[in-house]
């Protein structure tokens, strides 16, 4: 088990290292010189040269990368090229908000998705299954800005029961922010809900067909006991991994949803950074997102290992 965790950890660190190379090189694709971007096209060559010196842009690219990576790991994420402020406190403040929204969404769509998936599996090919599968497939395909705007149209504008705009102050406490989280959370959830439901459905169907489920039925155990003890224990195991893989979707969904609702999260900060071409900000946010994604996958792997006797005890 410890060897398993170490292996997973090693893989994830390696992956993150390579991902950092990609992020760094992509942002270096920027046409023209960063110094020019910052100072505008009318800057004097002397000013540009001074800034290049200051930013270390005259050094070889490898050195720049190494410097950037090590300072990122140390916690020195640089100074915004636009606002000239430290980016780390700026991002961390937004990260809290994004995590708040993400947690509310996860707490909503994971249990509901599992429930729907199990119901669909138990009614395989019957009406309930067709309805759940069809609707979840439809929602899984709808971009967040479409569902988000339709929800705003119905719940905020026509019925006026929830706020249409979630552009709260970044430091708002969770309790005060909660009403503003509901619509964005539903929006983010709809895409992932369908995904979780579909995956849960298929793994549950597999387990329902397994010989050991038949054996449990033939033992005359009460139906609910067969379901909770024999079926779900096995069929929800892959769901752990599925949820973690879905975090990538969730992050994409958060970016769009934050834009739709004007919610002050990391996603909106990223869009802002891209619009202003704030290289430092983009790099830091991207690295942070990759780290969050990778470690949630690691957590899922470890949880899977703990729940699966095959890995926990070795094969």
């Amino acid at each position, binding site marked *: 088990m410890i060897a398993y965790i170490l*292996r997973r950890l*090693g893989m994830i660190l390696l992956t993150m290292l390579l991902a950092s190379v990609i992020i760094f090189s992509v942002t270096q694709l920027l046409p023209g010189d960063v110094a020019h971007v910052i100072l505008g096209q009318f800057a004097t060559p002397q000013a540009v040269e001074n800034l290049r010196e200051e930013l270390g842009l005259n050094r070889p690219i490898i050195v720049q990368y190494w410097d950037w990576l090590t300072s990122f790991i140390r916690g020195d994420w640089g100074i915004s090229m636009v606002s000239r402020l430290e980016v780390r406190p700026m991002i961390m403040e937004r990260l809290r908000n994004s995590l708040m929204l993400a947690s509310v969404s996860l707490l909503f769509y994971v249990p509901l998705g599992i429930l729907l998936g199990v119901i669909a599996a138990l009614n395989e090919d019957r009406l309930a299954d067709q309805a759940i599968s069809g609707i979840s497939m439809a929602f899984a395909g709808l971009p967040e800005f479409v569902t988000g705007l339709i929800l705003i149209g119905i719940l905020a504008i026509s019925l006026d029961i929830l706020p249409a705009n979630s552009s709260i102050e970044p430091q708002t406490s969770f309790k005060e922010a909660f009403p503003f989280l509901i619509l964005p959370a539903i929006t983010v959830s709809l895409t992932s809900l369908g995904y979780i439901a579909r995956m849960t459905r298929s793994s549950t169907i597999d387990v329902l067909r397994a*010989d050991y489920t038949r054996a449990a039925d*033939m*033992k*005359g155990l009460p*139906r609910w*006991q067969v379901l909770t003890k024999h079926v779900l224990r096995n069929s929800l195991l892959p769901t752990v991994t599925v949820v973690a893989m879905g975090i990538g979707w969730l992050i994409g969904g958060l970016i769009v949803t934050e834009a739709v609702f004007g919610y002050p999260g990391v996603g909106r900060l990223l869009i802002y950074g891209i619009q202003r071409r704030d290289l430092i900000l983009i790099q830091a946010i991207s690295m942070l997102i990759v780290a969050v994604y990778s470690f949630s996958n690691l957590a899922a792997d470890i949880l899977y290992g703990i729940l699966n006797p095959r890995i926990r005890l070795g094969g």
Partner: protein
Amino acid sequence: MATDDKPTVLEVKNLWVSYATDDGPLNTVRNVSMKIRRGEIYGLVGESGSGKTTLARALVRYLPRNGSITSGSISLAGTDLLALSPGELRKVWGARVTMVHQDPSKAINPSITVGEQIAEMARVHLGMSRAQARHKALEMLEKVQLPDPESVAGRYAHQLSGGMLQRILIATALTTNPQFLIMDEPTTALDVTTEAVILDLVRDLLREYQTAVLYITHNLGVVARICDRVGVMYAGEIMEEGSIQRVFTHKLHPYTLGLLGCVPRIDIDKRDITLHTIPGHIPRPDALPEGCIFGPRCTFNDNTCHQTRNPLMEVEPEHFTICGRWADVEKSIREDFAQEKAIKALDQKDAPLVLDARNIEKQFKLRRSGLSNLFSWKPEVVRAVDNVSIRVRKGATMGIVGESGCGKTTFARCIAGFEQATSGDIFLEGEALPYSIAKRSKSTLKKIQLVFQNPDASLNPQHPVGQSVGRPLALLGNVLQSEIDQCVRELFEAVNLPADYVNRLPHELSGGEKQRVAIARAFAADPELMILDEPISSLDVSVQASLMNMLAELQKVKGTAYLFISHDLAAVRHLSDWIAVVYLGRLWEIGSAEDVFTPPYHPYTEALLSAIPIPDPNIHQERIRLQGSVPSAVNIPSGCRFHTRCPRKIGPICENEEPPWQNVHRFHSICCHIPLEELTAMQVPVASETEEEQQ
């Protein structure tokens, strides 16, 4: 037998079971009636598609959602099962009826300890507390003779061997002391020596518990060994039913006769006899023939057979058949059966050598893939094949026999070049071969061909089967492009397939037909050596028989040397001139087929022969059983590697020293510490007729 006066536990009358499918309803089980008494083991035999599993699931009303019982009655000790509500049914399941499933590794929940899986039965049906149920589980584990029940109870399925898992399933099924037990092919997934131990256990336990048992199997030998009564099922109906003694001695239905004739036996030297075959296929339930459903495949049929379908008739006391011509069938047994055909009269002891494989070794390094390797320890070595030498002569068959994991398939794959041997020499017609298939020349490739075990995987699902046979002709066969079609047709004819099959895709063929195509493909290159890697083991017995006949016929015509790999001793004996016995990657005995099957044997060979169930209730087999399971090929036992399980172990010498090869005569050798005279003195022939049970 002695059960006639016991009360009836299960009574089924005129049961019909139907499945709703896209093509309309399929009546998979039709008009089945049966009675099983207390303490009686009722064997239900039939080939795949005969409806035996559907019948079993219908008996406990546990059919798939599209299946339903359309008419008939099922009564369990006075309870009308068809009248029960689903809730009431669940109280019957587990308490009064239990089931042992086919593949124990799949029938045990992988994420619950096995002890808990027994204990939950006790809690639900016997109303026990947690502590009592735990105690009961340990008691049951002890009942099925598992060593160290305490530790076994706390383990998960993946930590236990197939034999142990099957014992656990049996323990589970008997926990509540049910009235009726269904066993669905409980030993099919096991090796023959494990099967023998489990069968002994089942017979002893059931005698003690006096449960009424429905025992489903395709293996007539197993029926003869443990059942009291037998029902022969075909295409959803019962053809013949009666006590074991009566059915096996007075076969009153041509299908029973055919099935028994299909099976090669280790106790009778029938190597020179063509096996009985049953032509054609089981009809689908929606396309049954007029009259007798077996009519089109029956050698006894006459006009009346095509017009009338008989019910099950009692023609002797407690012996039923649906065949109207049962008297003719019974009469034919003595005359018709032994139509001898000497396929291999030729004494090949001096025929030229085709394959000479010397000291072949194959080791696999156990390692995890790629980068994760950085985090694991030094690789372990699996010695799959360890110093095996085999020779095959022209026109002769060398059979390699052993249980799963003994290295026989790895050896064959080393010869074929799919695996690269670690060391050793492979000579083909005197010429040394490179280990890897990629380095072998076209002329070498042409000389060795292989027929694979699984016909589903050995044909490309996207290619018409004619194309699969045509390619080797084009590449290796020295055949003109224009003649390929003609050659393909000839090959199809040689393997008894209609020529218009060439354009079909594999999924349109049955398993047996696919294997015929695979054999035609292998013969297309006109090889000198044909490696047959378990070519028949995935098929039904009647199909096996016709393939074995065909292989023998083709060998006679073409003079090809066969290397026949199998776990089925009876098939090996039937087809082979020479036999090599393998265990844990080593050769233990080698000799002509007759010699290997007569004492002295190697103790392992002896145990194999004793384990095989012979389809004849009047045969007595010496009871020699191997305990435990095959050790891992990573940690091979010291000295004689069979000593951990050897029933004839003589002392420390077996644990410390490698045994020597001893020659019984020029063509028969045994690798064992026990002197040959002693082996001969303590061993008896494979099987003998029992006097006391003769009628």
